[in-house]
């Protein structure tokens, strides 16, 4: 063929038809192998990233809510603890008072009892002493009788002695 550059002939038509076939083949290959898969991949990736971001956002929100809740609970726990403590303190105070009162009462009772007992003891001792004196007096009287003193003198003597003892010694 003559070297050619530009001619309006059948060869041009033939070239154009071949070129159309070529561009059609290229279109098929490029669409199926390049454009569609890459677009799909890009779309998948952007979807995934969007989903990830959304998830992260949601997680953050959840965490925030959780944190708020915990803080709330912590605050309420603090308050509760405070309340429990103050209640306990109040109760302890009351207990203390009651215990103190009771102790005082007890002490009073013990003192009273002790006093009573002491009184009783005193009385008992006095009685004992009295009876002892009586006995003593009797013994003395016996002895006196033996030493022939009449009964009337004896009785008056005993009474006198008792009275004396009772009034002077035991009331002092």
């Amino acid at each position, binding site marked *: 063929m003559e070297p*050619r*550059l*530009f*001619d309006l002939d059948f060869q041009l038509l033939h070239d154009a038809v071949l070129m159309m076939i070529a561009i059609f083949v290229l279109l098929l290959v490029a669409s199926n192998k390049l454009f569609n898969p890459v677009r799909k991949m890009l779309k998948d990736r952007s979807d995934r990233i969007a989903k990830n971001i959304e998830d992260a956002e949601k997680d953050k929100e959840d965490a925030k809510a959780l944190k708020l809740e915990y803080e709330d609970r912590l605050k309420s726990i603090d308050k509760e603890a405070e309340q429990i403590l103050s209640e306990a303190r109040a109760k302890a105070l009351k207990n203390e008072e009651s215990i103190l009162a009771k102790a005082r009462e007890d002490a009073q009772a013990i003192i009273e009892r002790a006093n009573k007992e002491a009184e009783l003891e005193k009385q008992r001792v006095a009685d004992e002493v009295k009876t002892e004196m009586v006995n003593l007096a009797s013994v003395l009287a016996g002895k006196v009788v033996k030493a022939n003193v009449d009964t009337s003198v004896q009785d008056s003597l005993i009474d006198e002695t008792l009275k004396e003892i009772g009034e002077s010694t035991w009331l002092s």
Partner: protein
Amino acid sequence: MEFNENFILGCSAIGAGLAVIAGIGPGIGQGIAAGHAAAAVGRNPGAKGDVTSTMLLGQAVAETTGLYGLFIALMLLFVKPLV
């Protein structure tokens, strides 16, 4: 009247030379386009990219007439349609 081949070739060469005078028009046009683009960039430096691409597109289209002249010249010189 019969002309021999060399005469036609010579006339074709002259014709080719005349044809590339068509390059004047696109030269002026592209210069104007570039000047206005430069003014536009001066007024609005932020739009430099847009202005440049629009300018290049317009220049490439305006260049076509000059290229037609060049094309005719190449045809006359190399395809020799008149011989």
